[in-house]
Structure formats: structure tokens, C-alpha cells
């Protein structure tokens, strides 16, 4: 195909040819202008019998006759010919050597799964399987907009000899969770002068699964290392008696009680055999219900309610894993979309990461279906933590879901991201906008209050959160739940 440069040369050639040909028909300026303006040339030609034969009044047609042989004719014809030939003479050679199907492109990545904020090294290998040299080759490897190239370039401009292989690479930073495809690859072959080109798009892709950011967990780990607390088993006690180290209360001796638990001081004080009881170090069973309905996708890009909710879930699940609690996750929108049963271990955590990486805001919210789904699989009482904005569903469905869950003695806490706080900052608004925003806030609050009142009546705790306090509140809920022994195993 002719490139714009080649087309310019060809059109330039045609233009010059046209100038030459037209000049042959018309003549020079000095002969042309007098004819047009004054008819001098016409008179002159009439004298030379050139316009003889034209009917009266039509003598002006004489200007189209051959009047003069100008050097512009030869010059235009010569240069036009040269340019036109220059634009096509290389075409057969280009076609002979450049065949994009002979270019083989492969792409490799050093990892197919990465946390948001991590780097991926992409290597592209280009091979000329043919025997002829390709003078000018451009290869572009398309990357999703979400990725940022931190080092190297995702394209190359080079030449390739026959059977030659060349490689280039670049490092990208994956910024947000999700599944992304690197590709397609565009191959453009030019000739040396850039007159012709051939373009080919190779639709092959490399999938990168991007987990949510590990930054929060890393920060928490750093904090834990510094303080050397909060990671040990049983550090956060429940109020139930058991076999722990912390004293709970004194109780009357009962047959079978171990002798080492006898409190002799109490016996001497009261005259009755008393035994010391200790707080139990029990683990809890935690189920996080993550709502990913359409309304959860609202907010500032990459900092939506869902993004914050996912960060919270990751953090709480990691904490639960370290504390050997049984933590599970169910994601739901208009139906349950994925379920991770309560368990522990690294494999479970990676499953969690995959689930969270693929979660997208969609549809309406049906917490009842999610509760039913979990209760069918997990009949025991657990600690249910809902992270939902309570927006994409009727309040009756929430109430019904809470009723059913409470009927099975499950403890429920709802952490609810408050929409307007995620979508705008009051400080950024003008006075009028702020007034409108406040009115919307109030309307929202009115609706939420109704839902909250109903749910609180069922013994459900509700915490409204904004982007600044969602993470601390989720951690606090978990810690308090653990302390209170909610859903203890």
C-alpha cells in the first residue's frame, strides 16, 4: 500500500505532468495574461490565422489552442515522470521482500499474576522467518490503559535480516485489580524511503490477573513486626472461660476438676473448695458478605466503594488467617457469584485474591440469596460481616435476610459505605453545589435510617463508613467480634 509520503511523490509527479501538459496548451504568463485581460494575444493569434474558423464572438476559444512551446512543458514532463516513476519503481521489490506473514512475534511475561502496584516484565521476540531482509519494521505491543510502562518501550523500530531474531522488553506497573490482556501486536513493514507499507495486526493476547493491592497488608505486617503483637494465637481473648492463661473467675469445685486449679487461698478464705477458671482462647468463624452490585462501583475511579470494600476484605481475611480464625467470603450481586468456605492457609488466601481480582460491580443486590446460600453450606452459627451500601436492593430483602440469619443464631454486623462520601468531597464544591449535596445527603440518610431501624430491631449492628474510616472500622468490627466471641468455633 502506498504511504502518505509515496502518495505525495506520486501526486506531485502527476501535478507536474499536468502543469507540463496544461502549459503546452496555454503558454506562459506573459502570453496568457494579455489574452485573458486584454485580448492582445488573441488579436495576435488572429493575425497569425490561429483562431480562424471560430464563429464571431467565440474567438476567446483561441486561448485553448497551442500558442507557445514553453520550457515549462519539458520541465514539468521530465520532473513529473521522474517523481511518478520514483514512487512506483520500488513497489515490486517491496512486495517481493516484505511479507508480514513471515514475521513471527511472540510475547512472554515473567508472571501472569501480580498484585496491584507490582511490576511485570514483558519480553517480545520478533523473528524474520523469511530469507530476505526487511529494511524498516515497526512492532507495537498494545497494553491496556490501566498499565503504566515504567521502564523500556512497548514498541520497536528496526530492520531484520533473513532468519534474524530480535528481542525487546519493557516493565509495566499493574495498577488496579482485574483481568487484563496484553495485545494485540501490530506489525508494520515499510520500504527504506517510506513510500509503501504493509500493516498486520496479530490478535494474540497474554492475560494478566491483577490481585488487589497488597499494600495495606504489608503496612499492617510492618506495624505488627514493629510492635510484636497482634499476631500470636489467642492474643485477643474472648469472654468465655477455657484453658487460657488469663484468669476469668473462681468457681466451686466440681468432681473431676484438676487439682492444680484449686485456689487454696480462696479455700482458706471461704472454707469451700474453689477452682480457678481461665479465659478460653477460642477462634471464631467469620463470613464476609461482599456486595458487588452496581451501586458499589460508584465513586472516584479506582477508589470506589467496591475498591475500598475489597481492601477491607483482604485486610480482615489476612488478619483472620494469621490469627487462625476460620474466615470465609461470599461475593454477591443479584445472586451469589463466588464463595470461599471458611478455612485457613495460604492456598485459601490465594483463592480469595483471585475472587477479589475478578469482582466487578454489576446488577442489583440480593443479600437474601447470599444468606441462604451460606446457611445451606454452613449450618453452624457464625459471625456475618456484610459490606454493603444498602442501596441496590429493597429494605425488605435486607430485613428478611437478617431475620433468617438471626434465626440460626448468627451474629450480624453491617459495614455500610455511605455513597455520597465516596463520590464527592464537600470541600471541593461551591456553595450552591454544597447546598444541593447536603440536601441529597439528608435524603439518603432518611432512607438509610429506615433500613437501619428495621435491622437494628433484629439485633444487627450497622456502621456507616466513609473512605477515610472504612478500613479501621472493618478491623475494629473483626477485633470486637473476636473479643466478644461472636461465631466462636
Amino acid at each position, binding site marked *: 500500500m502506498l504511504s502518505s509520503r509515496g502518495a505525495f511523490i506520486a501526486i506531485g509527479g502527476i501535478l507536474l505532468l499536468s502543469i507540463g501538459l496544461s502549459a503546452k496548451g496555454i503558454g506562459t504568463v506573459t502570453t496568457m495574461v*494579455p489574452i485573458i485581460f486584454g485580448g492582445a494575444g488573441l488579436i495576435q493569434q488572429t493575425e497569425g490565422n490561429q483562431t480562424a474558423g471560430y464563429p464571431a464572438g467565440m474567438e476567446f476559444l483561441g486561448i485553448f489552442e497551442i500558442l507557445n512551446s514553453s520550457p515549462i512543458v519539458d520541465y514539468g514532463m521530465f*520532473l513529473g515522470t*521522474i517523481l511518478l516513476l520514483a514512487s512506483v519503481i520500488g513497489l*515490486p521489490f517491496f512486495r517481493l521482500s516484505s511479507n508480514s*506473514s513471515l514475521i513471527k512475534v511472540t510475547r512472554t511475561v515473567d508472571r501472569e499474576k501480580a498484585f496491584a502496584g507490582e511490576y511485570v516484565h514483558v*519480553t517480545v521476540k*520478533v523473528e524474520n522467518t523469511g530469507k530476505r*531482509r526487511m529494511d524498516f519494521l515497526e512492532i507495537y505491543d498494545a497494553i491496556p490503559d490501566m498499565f503504566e510502562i515504567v521502564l523500556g518501550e512497548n514498541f520497536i523500530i528496526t*530492520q531484520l535480516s533473513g532468519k534474524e531474531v530480535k528481542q525487546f522488553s519493557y516493565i509495566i506497573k499493574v495498577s488496579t485489580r482485574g483481568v487484563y490482556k496484553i495485545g494485540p501486536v501490530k506489525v508494520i513493514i515499510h520500504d527504506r*524511503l517510506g513510500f509503501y507499507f504493509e500493516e498486520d495486526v496479530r490478535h494474540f493476547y497474554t492475560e494478566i490477573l491483577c490481585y488487589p493491592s497488597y499494600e495495606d497488608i504489608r503496612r499492617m505486617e510492618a506495624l505488627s513486626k514493629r510492635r510484636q503483637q497482634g499476631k500470636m494465637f489467642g492474643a485477643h481473648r474472648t469472654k468465655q472461660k477455657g484453658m487460657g492463661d488469663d484468669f476469668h473467675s473462681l468457681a466451686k469445685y466440681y468432681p473431676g476438676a484438676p487439682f492444680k486449679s484449686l485456689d487454696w487461698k480462696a479455700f482458706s478464705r471461704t472454707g469451700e473448695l474453689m477452682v480457678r477458671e481461665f479465659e478460653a482462647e477460642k477462634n471464631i468463624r467469620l463470613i464476609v458478605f461482599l456486595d458487588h452490585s452496581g451501586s458499589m462501583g460508584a465513586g472516584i475511579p479506582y477508589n470506589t466503594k467496591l475498591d475500598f470494600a475489597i481492601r477491607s476484605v483482604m485486610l480482615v481475611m489476612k488478619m483472620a488467617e494469621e490469627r487462625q480464625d476460620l474466615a470465609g467470603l461470599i461475593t454477591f450481586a443479584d445472586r451469589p457469584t463466588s464463595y470461599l468456605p471458611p478455612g485457613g492457609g495460604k492456598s485459601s488466601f490465594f483463592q480469595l485474591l483471585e475472587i477479589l481480582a475478578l469482582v466487578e460491580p454489576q446488577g442489583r443486590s440480593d443479600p437474601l440469596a447470599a444468606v441462604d446460600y451460606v446457611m445451606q453450606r454452613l449450618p453452624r452459627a457464625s459471625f456475618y460481616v456484610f459490606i454493603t451500601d444498602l442501596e441496590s436492593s429493597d429494605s425488605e430483602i435486607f430485613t428478611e435476610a437478617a431475620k433468617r440469619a438471626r434465626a440460626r443464631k448468627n451474629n450480624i454486623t453491617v459495614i455500610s459505605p455511605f455513597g455520597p462520601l465516596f463520590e464527592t468531597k464537600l470541600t471541593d464544591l461551591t456553595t450552591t453545589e454544597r447546598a444541593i449535596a447536603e440536601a441529597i445527603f439528608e435524603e439518603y440518610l432518611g432512607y438509610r435510617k429506615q433500613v437501619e431501624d428495621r435491622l437494628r430491631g433484629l439485633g444487627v449492628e450497622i456502621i456507616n463508613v466513609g473512605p477515610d474510616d472504612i478500613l479501621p472500622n472493618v478491623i475494629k468490627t473483626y477485633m470486637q467480634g473476636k473479643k466478644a466471641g461472636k461465631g466462636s468455633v
Partner: protein
Amino acid sequence: MLAGQKVALFFRMLYLFLFILTALWLFFYSFLEIIGIDPSFLELIGLDPVFDPSMFDFTQVLNIIEYLMLLIQGIVGGFAALAFSILAILINAVARVPFIGDMANADYLSVLSTIQELSNPSNNFFPHSTITDPAAFVEDFGNFLGATTILTLMPITFLSGLGFLKDGDTKLAIYSFLGFQIIIIIAIFTEKILISTSIDSSNIFSMLFSPLFFMGFMLYLLLEIAFQTSYTLNILEPMTEREKRIQKHLKRIRTYVPVSEEEKTKTQESGIKSMQSKKFGLLASSYLREMVERRVFKSGEEVIDAKSMMRLQSYLTNLNQTDPLTDQKLAAKTAQPDVSALIKHFIPTMILRVIAVVFLSYIIMSPQGIIDVFMARAFPALRQSLELSQPEFRTIAILNITLIFILISVILHYLSSGRTGKALLRVVQRIDTLVDFERSTKPVQTPGEAGEEEQEEEGAPTDDEEEIS
């Protein structure tokens, strides 16, 4: 300097040399004429002027302005006369209306007299002269227009050429080429070109060295070299720049040392202290770090996210451990074009192209020789035809030769794309289908015959085979 940069410089110098040569030839005389130096001494050294210096004589400007005023006078007078006639008709029409006609008559008459005054050539409003010699006026005007256009285009053309040398942008070379062409065409049109304008196409060398053709050829060569230079610049410079830039980034990442907030504050506080005290003081370590930072970020860039930088640093270290060629791949060093191959192919390719283009042009411009050799016997009338030397014939020849090249390329593309193989396969499949069709449309056979045939197909020995065995 890297090899790639050297090659790019070589091509730029080549372009510069040819550009200056052409520009000097075209402009130098005119330039000297304009600045008031008599250029006749240049003729002594054999440099002939291209343009007639009288073209740049602007003493006729006043005459031209006067002519222009006369033209305006004519136009205004014409319109005024037209307006006068229209208004007169209107006044007559209005005057016939009872009552209103009498009331408006006086006003209309004053407007009419003003217009009449405007259209009168002897009203002291326009210069009192007439165009005595229209041909002289046209010539003066043409010269003036041509000279001003050339003078306007000259710096544009020159600067575009220099701009191309600086930026390597082909558009600028094209602008320069266009500028040259327009200048030459204007000079030819105004008949102010001094070099011989006849192109002798009796043989290829006389054609090549005809001054006008040679000038056109030089300009084409300049454009060709500009494209070749652009190729080397496009392919070599970005890759060389990229390599340098990425190596710099890599070095910067590797040598990055984070400075803690505490140390930063301390350094800032001690900024007023002397450098000597810093060197030997307690802040020696932070001073050294600062020096490292200054060295690494000498361009004044700041690392905003130190954590990301550290992470990238460790990531790169890991990558290098697994693949020692990582740095080279990132800098695309392994994909750098071969400079020696570039030079090796540049000159022969260009020479061959130019020779082919000139030779074909000669054939088109002077087809007599080729016709004498190849077609004399077949078409004697064609050989003797005067039309062969006419531009119409040349046009037809150009179009045909162009189309032949396009046709060859289409055929080659078709062959190289593997479609021939596919087409052959399709033909074979079609034949197979036809054969199958014949088999399937055989006359209906009795069960016994069919059984025999099945046996044959299954490879059961036939009577003949049995005999042989």
C-alpha cells in the same frame, strides 16, 4: 559518539552538502543582486545565474501601484455607472407614484448626483492617467509578483531544508522541495530564467546535462537523499536515544539511595553551614547520599515515590539474576539495527534507484531509440510518427509503465502471500469433488455387483491379481 549517531551525521552532512550546492546555484546571484552587489564576478568563476537579475528591479513598483489604482477606478466607476442606471430607473418609477414621488424626488436626485460624480473619471478622485501600454503593465506586474513570491519563498525553502537537518522531519524536506519547484516554475513562467531551458533528449547524457533537467534532477536527488536520511534518522536515532535513555534510567534506579525524612530535615537545616564543615561533620553520611542523589538526578528530577523506586530496584535485581540479558532487552540493545548493513545497502540502493529512474525517464521522453531497436519492423509507421515526441505520447507511456510496475507488484504480492497455494488446493479439492461426483453418479448396480465393488475397494484380490500371484 555511537556508530548509529555517526551514520546519521554522515547522511545529514550529505544532505547539507547537496542542499547548499543547489541553494547557492539558485539563490546566490539573486541574493547578491538584492543586497546591491554586482554579481558579474561570479561569472568569471563559471557560476552562471539562474534568474535574470532585472526581475528583482522594483523601480516599477510605483507604476504598478498606479496601474492598480486605475484598475480600482475602473471597477468602482463601472459599479457606480451600474448603480446610477438602476437608481435612475427606481427614481422614475417612484416619481410616478402620486404624492410620495413629489416628496422623495429631491433626496433621490442628490444621491444620484453623488453617484454620477463617483463614476466620473475626471473628478480628481483618481489619478489622471490611463493605461497606455497594457502589455508593459502585465509584464511589470508579472515580474513584480514573481519576484516577490520568489523572495518570500527563498527563506522558507532555505529554512525548511535546515529545519529538516535539525529535526529530521521529512515534511520539512518536502516543503523545501516544493519551494524550489515553485521558484523554478515561476521563473520559467515569467521568462526570467537565464539558464538554457531546452532539454536535449537526443541521448541520455545530453539530457542529463541539460541545465534545466540537471537542476530538476538535483532537486529530485536532494529529495531522495532526504528520504534516505530520514530513514536512517527514523531507524537509528530513536533506537540510539532509547538505549541511552533507558541505560540512564537503569543506572538511576540501581544507584538510588533513599534519604529518610529525618536526614532530609537535618540536611536542610544544615544547608547554611559551610561545605567543609559538612564534609567532616556529623552529617557526612547524609552529605554523601545527597551527593549521590545529585549525581543521579542531575537533571533536577525528583523521585516522588521512593517506595516504588526501591521496589523497582529490587525487582530489577531479581530479573537480572534470572536473565542476565534483561538490561539489554529493556534498552532494546539487542534490537538495534545493524549500522554496517545500513551503510552497505544505502549507497548501492540509491544509485540503482536513481539510475533506473533516469533511464526510464529517458525512455519515456525519447522513445525513438527503443522503438528503433524493438519495434522498427513491427510498427514502421509508429517509428516515423511525429507524435512520439509529443507530450501526449509521453503521458500515455508514463501511465503504462507505472501500471506495469503496479501490476508486477500485485502479482508478486499474490504469489508471496501464499494465496496461489490455497487457490491450487481449492482447484484440487474441486477436481476431487468432481471425481467423487462421477463415482456417486454411477449407474445403479445390482447387489451382487455392488458387493464385488466393495470387495475391490477393501483391497480384496481381483481375478487379475490372483492370476499374477
